[in-house]
């Protein structure tokens, strides 16, 4: 793995992809579950080629945001636009076809399908499974190739996370939504997964990353948004957020001096 790290572009300081056109735009998106408002009109933008981190405590609305983008939830008001097109009223299974891949919270592997079948499910939107994509996923996650005939339910947490990302990649997404890829994983595995996320981005996939692990996420991301109880309270280039004392205190576990 470490020799591949050299192929990754140097840590981005001056935002390059952040000057690109927006691939995903949320404008005053409001989402409610029954009477409970989970998103109180958020504005958010992900530009072509970026990694954008979405940070915040539990219940801040991070997962809700991703689920709204991929069509699992319908906004009560506001608009989600992808590649300039409004996603209003488009069902989830059609949104995938527009090129939005979603690796959901909790990984949600098909536990009684093999690793290979899970990856094939990821390519469900295509007529046939592309061998090239499969090879690419196996190249990113050699572990999955070793385990290809095992049932998804028998994988370790880290392997399941790799499978969840690999499965989403099989749909050839232009925009990849990653929901807490580090959840419940050992630090070493987390480092590996973050490295692969960076590679996936370098290969041309735009990424919207939801994370509790704010420090790691911000090291990877170009820009970040901080959500608090359904509202964006801060948005800035990742480097700025990483150095912001409020962020350091609230999300990076440091006490204020």
């Amino acid at each position, binding site marked *: 793995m470490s020799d591949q790290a050299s192929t990754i572009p140097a840590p981005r300081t001056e935002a390059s992809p952040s000057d690109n056109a927006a691939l995903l735009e949320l404008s005053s998106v409001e989402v409610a579950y029954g009477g409970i408002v989970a998103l109180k009109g958020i504005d958010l933008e992900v530009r072509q080629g970026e990694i954008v981190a979405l940070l915040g405590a539990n219940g801040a609305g991070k997962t809700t945001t991703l689920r709204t983008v*991929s*069509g*699992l939830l319908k906004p009560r008001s506001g608009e989600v636009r992808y590649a300039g097109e409004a996603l209003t009223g488009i*069902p*989830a*299974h*059609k949104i*995938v*076809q527009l090129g939005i*891949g*979603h690796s*959901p919270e909790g990984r*949600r592997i*098909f*536990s*009684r*399908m093999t690793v290979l*079948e899970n990856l*094939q*499910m*990821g390519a*469900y*939107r295509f007529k046939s499974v592309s061998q090239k994509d499969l090879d690419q996923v196996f190249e990113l996650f050699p572990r999955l190739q070793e385990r290809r005939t095992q049932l998804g339910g028998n994988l370790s947490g880290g392997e399941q996370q790799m499978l969840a990302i690999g*499965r*989403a990649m099989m*749909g050839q997404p232009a925009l990849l939504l990653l929901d807490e890829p580090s959840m419940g994983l050992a630090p070493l595995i987390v480092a590996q997964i973050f490295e692969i996320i960076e590679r996936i981005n370098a290969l041309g996939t735009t990424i919207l990353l939801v994370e509790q692990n704010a420090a790691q996420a911000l090291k990877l991301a170009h820009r970040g948004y901080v959500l608090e109880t359904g509202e964006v309270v801060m948005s800035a280039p990742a480097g700025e957020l990483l150095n912001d004392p409020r962020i350091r205190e609230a999300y990076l576990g440091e006490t204020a001096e």
Partner: protein
Amino acid sequence: MYFTQHFWELLFQGIRLGSLYALIAIGYTMVYGVLQLINFAHSEVFMSGALGGVFMLTALAGTNGNIPSGFSAFEYTALALIAGAVVSAAVAFSLERVAYRPLRKRHAPKLVYLITAIGASIFLYNLAGKLFGRNNLQVPESFHSGPVFVLPGSGPSGPRTVKTLDVLIIATAFVMMIVLDLVINRTKLGSGIRAVAQDAETAQLMGVDVGKVISRTFIIGGLLAGVGGVLYAMFHAVSYTMGFIPGIKAFTAAVLGGIGNVRGAMLGGLLLGIVESFSQGIIPNGLEWVDVVSFVVLVVVLLIRPTGILGERTGRAA
């Protein structure tokens, strides 16, 4: 002893009955897989297939009352099976569209589905009674059921001969089950069905149109139940209430095998058929005890293995 003397005959009868239970049970289990709903109206899907097949036979035999032979016998039988399959599939499809889809759109609680299923069942069999009369229907024979081979041991009236009809029933049921197994495990539709059964929401994220998959699942269940209905009609009374008992038995078979698990339904169906047949041979006056034995078996299996024979976790098996 009666049982040992008639072992092969009883086993054979069990397989014949059990393969029909299996065909019906698949519909229960597949619909449960994708909707977590016990579709109690499935017994009426089965009944309507039997009626469809019988009407097809009546229409064909109408011109001459003779029992066809040779190629026309094959044609008659095949057409009856197709008619049954199509009618059942159409009923199952409409049932999903009219009764269950609106509930799914409104995210109705599971209890509402169950009540709807029971309501749909009552509606359908009463409709059939109204349309086609409440007496047993005459079933024209589609072919001469000649002897094929003789089973070892002897029956009540001499050796038990396996007839063409027996072979037809078992062969058709097994072919359909094998084809279904291939569809589920080897086709894209099959992977869609399995994905929806395991995690419908994540299936959507893969681009699976859940509504379409559910609809097709009902159609597949209907096709199998319809064929089962026509085969059943060839050796049982046909009427608007004929679905109830086989329906309950097939549901039992599905639970026995592990509800949600298609191979479990096949296994459970065969097992239940054999248990019923054996209990007739072992218990004096066995015929009167058949239903008791079936449900005792069900209760015992569920006590030992609550998820059924092939069920892995409660509910979510496919």
